[in-house]
């Protein structure tokens, strides 16, 4: 898939380091865990909550050209689906690799794609 993951919270890098040192599940995380203590970047992505200073669970898929391809924002107590994230990325990569083809509802990697009459210039719709 060749995808770069970046996580962002308003914690300090020292908190991230402590989190990594104490949590067995986070210990082996390879991707950058970014720190946005001022909330500036989190505000630019619309996920910063002024009441708490904490972020919502926001997830953005960005293509190689830097365009947002998908957005999911959940309230804090609800977790994400990693399977659905992977499905969406693979579908987007398949569409990018096959101009004029689309990955229809429920498409899974390996499924047939369908032809689409949606012009390529709105491929980021």
């Amino acid at each position, binding site marked *: *898939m*060749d*995808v*770069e*993951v*970046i*996580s*962002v*919270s308003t*914690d300090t*890098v020292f908190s*991230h*380091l*402590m*989190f*990594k040192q104490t*949590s067995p*599940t*986070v210990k082996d*995380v*390879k*991707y950058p*865990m970014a*720190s946005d203590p001022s909330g500036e*970047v989190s*505000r*630019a*992505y*619309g*996920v*910063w909550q002024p009441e*708490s200073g*904490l972020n*919502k*669970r926001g*997830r*953005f*898929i*960005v*293509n*190689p*050209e*830097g*365009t*947002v*391809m*998908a*957005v999911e*924002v959940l309230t*804090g107590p609800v977790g*994400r689906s*990693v399977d659905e*994230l992977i499905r969406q990325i693979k579908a987007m*990569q398949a569409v*990018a*690799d096959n101009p004029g083809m689309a990955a229809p509802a429920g498409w899974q990697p390996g499924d047939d794609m369908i032809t689409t009459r949606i012009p*390529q210039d709105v*491929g*980021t*719709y």
Partner: protein
Amino acid sequence: MFRRSLLVGLASVAFAISAQAEVLGPCGTPDAQTPAPATPATASAPAVAAGPVVASIPLPGQKAPNFELQAVVGEEVKTIKLSDYDGKWRVICFYPADFTFV
């Protein structure tokens, strides 16, 4: 348990992602710069009444705002930019706080 499985899940994405170094083909066409529409000569009432000011979330089709932040990478602290990874598919995951599920 629930938190752990989700963390493991996200960690395994990164692992699966790095383990599967599939070669990306041509990744679509770059966004064409469309000229801004001409503003109407006469000001008219907005079609939609302005609601409360809400955070603006970059939507599909819009440019992902670039950023530069300190990050823990492995056991080191580095400065990273979103644009460091131009040319690659990226997932940016915001979450409330360390020591919660991601």
